[in-house]
Every structure is written in C-alpha cells, then in structure tokens.
C-alpha cells in the first residue's frame, strides 16, 4: 500500500531529480529487485496470491470446475450451498434458478472476467500509447485533433457510452472487449502525452536528434522505454475497472449473453431471487470484489515501486 507518504515529523528528503528528469537515467527500479521487494509487502503478496488463484481458475476451468456450468436440472432449482442431491453430488455454492452449479459457473466466470479485463486493456493500451506518443511528440494539429477527441469521449460517462454501443451492437464477448477497449484509451493517451512532453526536450533526446537519428527511432527507442511506468500502472488499474464494467454491463443484460457463465450474469440471474437465494448474489459479488481489490492493491504497490511520483497523476 502506501508506505511512501512522509509523516510531517520526518525530515523531507529533497528530490534531486526534477519532475522532467528521465527515470531511465538514475535509479530505474531493477527487475531483479521486483520479487524480493514484493515479498516484503504482505498486502501485495496476498493480492498476488488471489490473482494467481483467479488466473488458475480461468485457465483450468475445464478441469477444476466440479460440474458442467451449463447443465440445466430443473428438479434441483435454487438449492442452498452444500446441497447434496440424490446421486451424492455436492453443490458447494448451491444452484441457480435453472439448477445449474453456481460454484462451477463462478470458476468459468473467472475466465470471462480475465479475458475481458486483459484483452480490453491490450486494446486501450495500444491505442492510447500510440495516440499519446504521436500527440506529445509532434504536437501541433495532430495534438489538437487527438486532444479534442479525448475531450469528446470524456464528456460521456464511460459506462453510459459502453452501455449504448452494446445496446446497438447486441451482446457478445468479442463486442464487449472491443467496446471496453475503445472507450478506455483516453486515460493512457493523456498521460503518455504528458510524459512525452516532459522528456522530449531532455538531453538524451536532443542528443539523439543531434546524431541524426530518425524520428520514429527516437520515438520508439528513446522515448517509449522511458514512459512505461505510468502505462503499466494504468493498465493494472484498468484491468480492475474492466472487470467491474463487464459485470455491470452483463448485469444490465448487454454484456456477455445471459447463457455465458460470467460474474455479471450470475449477479443478474440472482437479482430476481435476492430474497430466497442470496448465495448467487453474494458469491459472485465476493468474487468480483476480491479480484478487483487484489488488482488495486497490487497496482498501488506497483506504482510505488516503479515511481512514487506517479501518485500525483494516476
């Protein structure tokens, strides 16, 4: 979490690097230090553990899930957790309104959450990175146009924009990934742009210009490696917000199709039965919250590890 806040009694260590100094030159965090440092933070370690569990569930759902998540058995509708049927099969988290195994659906749901969370981040990261690099480096008209597009997109609450686009396109995993990816790039674009602006007149960039290097080489080989930190940090937080967005949209019926087991569709299935079968709502909600919490805590840790100054912008 945030151990890097100075308490007022402590003496302030003057920051020798100005905010424009390229982090690559002095004290860039070493990759080899990552794990030893991680093991010193209990919260970050626990979060990593949860995330690994969710990843294992997502990758190995076919083998881990005790039952087929889609098999409908109307004779055992809405059975509570730990219900054992006549065949001796125990349902750890009970069944839903169609008699499907909630625990198995939850495990398969991890797959949807992870796929949506990660793929949408790849799309928005790639688009935002490109826009931010070009906008910050070339400035002028390119910058003006991209920034106005950012403004326009920011004037729509993200969830509202995603909701209406999904409503027109119709539900589906591929569409959901695309919509979340393309509505989420603005944050990357803006922050990458500001980072590029901050370092593009630094000595190492000017030196590259002086040696006659090509523009794209300067952009991708000198500038890009120095602005990774905020991109990685935003990406980690965006995975979390995408998981929530998937759940919200699926809950409203425009995310993944209702038949696909996802944490959002389980919540949606549980909505009508909240008074008689709250285990649907509670189990899916805990899965979402715990995953998002872990990603956020790890993201916080990663930010402080990579560059504590990012606290002001991310």
């Amino acid at each position, binding site marked *: 979490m945030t151990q890097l806040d100075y308490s007022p009694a402590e003496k302030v260590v003057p920051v020798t690097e100005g905010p424009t100094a390229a982090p690559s030159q002095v004290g860039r965090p070493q990759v080899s230090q990552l794990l030893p440092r991680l093991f010193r933070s209990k919260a970050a370690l626990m979060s990593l553990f949860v995330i690994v569990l969710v990843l294992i569930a997502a990758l190995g759902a076919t083998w881990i899930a005790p039952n087929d998540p889609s098999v409908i058995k109307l004779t055992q509708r809405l059975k509570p957790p730990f219900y054992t049927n006549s065949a001796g099969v125990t349902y750890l988290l009970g069944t839903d309104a169609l008699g499907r195994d909630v625990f198995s659906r939850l495990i398969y749901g991890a797959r949807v959450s992870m796929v949506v969370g990660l793929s949408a981040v790849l799309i928005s990261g790639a688009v935002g990175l490109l826009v931010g690099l070009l906008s910050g480096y070339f400035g002028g008209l390119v910058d003006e146009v991209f920034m106005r597009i950012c403004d326009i997109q920011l*004037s729509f609450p993200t969830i509202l924009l995603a909701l209406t686009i999904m409503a*027109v396109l119709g539900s589906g995993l591929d569409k959901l990934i695309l919509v979340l990816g393309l509505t989420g790039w603005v944050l990357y674009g803006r922050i990458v742009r500001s980072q590029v602006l901050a370092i593009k007149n630094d000595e190492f960039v000017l030196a590259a210009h002086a040696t006659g290097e090509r523009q794209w080489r300067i952009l991708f080989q000198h500038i890009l490696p120095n602005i990774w930190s905020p991109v990685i940090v935003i990406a980690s937080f965006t995975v979390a917000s995408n998981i929530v967005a998937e759940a919200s949209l699926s809950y*409203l019926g425009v995310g993944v199709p209702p038949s696909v087991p996802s944490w959002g569709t389980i919540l949606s299935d549980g909505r009508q039965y909240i*008074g008689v079968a709250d285990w649907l709502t509670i189990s899916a909600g805990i899965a979402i919250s715990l995953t998002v919490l872990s990603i956020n805590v790890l993201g916080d840790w990663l930010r402080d590890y990579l560059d504590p100054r990012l606290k002001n912008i991310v």
Partner: protein
Amino acid sequence: MRYAIRRLFQSLIVAFGVSVVAFGMLFMTGDPAEVILGESADRMSVSQIQEFRVKMGFDRPWYVQYGSFVGKALQGDFGNSFVRHQPAFEVITDKLPATIQLASAAFVLSLLISIPLGVLSAMNPHKLLDRIATVLAIFGQSIPGFWLGILLILLFGVHLKWLPISGSGTWQHLVMPSIALAAFPIARNMRLTRSSMLDVMQRDFVRTARAKGISETRVVYVHVLRNSLLPIVTAIGLEAGFLLGGSVITETIFGWPGVGREIVSAIGSKDFYVVQAGVIMLALIFSAVNLLIDIAYSWIDPRIRYGS
C-alpha cells in the same frame, strides 16, 4: 476572460462531437432500420422494411439526416418515444430532477464523509484511525457500487426491513441509493485529501506558521487544508460524470425513476430516440458542469489562466 472564451469554444467542439456520437449510434451496424426493428424485422417483408425506412427518413443521405437531426435537436425535438408516445425529450426531462436529486445527495454525502476523514487520517498518519480509514478506502474503491447496492438491499431492505428497497418519494428511499453511489467517491476523495494534506504539511510556509507559534488547529485547518483543496476540487469536477454515469446502474437496481433507469429500460424496449435524447442530455450536463468548474477554477488559481 480569454481563457473562458477559449474554454467555451472547446465546449462547443465537444457538443458537436456529442451530437455526432449520439447520431452515429444508430448507424453503427450500417442500418438504423434494422436496429430499431430488431427481431421483428425477420417477420417483415423487404418492401415493408423499405416502407419503414422511408417513413423514418433513413433513405436520405446521411449528411441530410444528420443536418435534420441537429436542427431538430437544437429545438429540443429528438423524435417521439415509440413506447410512451410522447416526445423523447420530454420523457428525459421528466426524469431529470430525480437523477439530479440522487447525484446531489451522493455528492454531498461523499464530501461530508471523505474530507473530514481524510483530514483526520493525515493528522495521525500510520496510527490506528489512519490504518482503518485506509483499509476502508481501498475496499470502497474496489467493491463495485452496484453490488454494494444489492448488499444494502439485502441487509436493510430484505432482512432488517428498515428501508424501502425500491422507488422514490421519501427521504428513506434516498438513503441506500446515495450510499451505493457515494461509496467510490468517498474512498477516492478521502485518499486524495489525505495525500494532498501530507504533501502540503511539508512545505516551508507550514513550518513557518508553526515556528510563529500559531496553534496546531489553526495550522491544520487554515494553512494546510485550504492549500490542499486544489487537487480535490479538480477531482470533484470529474466526479459529476461519475455520478451521472454511475446513476445508470444504481437507479436500475433501486428502481429510482431517473434518466439512467429510463435509458436502460428504453434500451430494453429498443426505444432508441429516448436513448439518444438521454445520452445527449447526460453528456451535455456533464460538459456544462465541467466548463463551469474549469472557469471557476481559473479564478481560484490564476496559474491556469496564464499557463499553457
């Protein structure tokens, strides 16, 4: 003043962009008639569909359609709701007060809780209170608001029966939706207040104030807090969008009769003129709020007026 004019000009570009997006929404699949008719198009003959296209004006070139869309929208005409048989604009404006009521309640609630907690945390860093507040804040930022809403319904509505689970009208109806909507802003503003306060506390002028023998209370509330508020004011501007957007789901869960729930139910019944009107209204309100905040902000902090 020049800043205000430039900022106003930017808002006009945004408004233009909003109209393009809202108009383009129906054309994303290529055929707006198909979007509106949905599955019932399968039961119609080709000539019937064509007739529908002509009736709706979808047979005209897109720029003519866009022109007439903007022309009518400027007069508050967004077409008629297919379901309610009344102008879409009216459907939305009727629901607007409820949405603003809920968003304002959540907004006030978030400020009343987050800023005092953030100040207390910053005054006692790494003590018990700070740790509890920090953990709560991380939970608040991670638990999806709509699930929190469902949990509140389950606990206070279904089990304890203290509060009504759906609808509006009395102050009791407002309690759970505003908590669910405010949870995230409370958590974020609290962390922001805390880190901003800790940041300011290290500045020279605070040390000077202490050295002059000013009481600690005065140092904290007058010197530190006032200077910590700038980043919080910025965050509050963005919050307007979050509250309006978040209301879509919160309103649906609590059956709150606002714009958000109306948009969701209009999507369900493929009443796209209402969806368009709702999306445009929310986006324009959000832009207007941000415009006002930016201009107000430039008066508070002259660096913005003279900066970049």
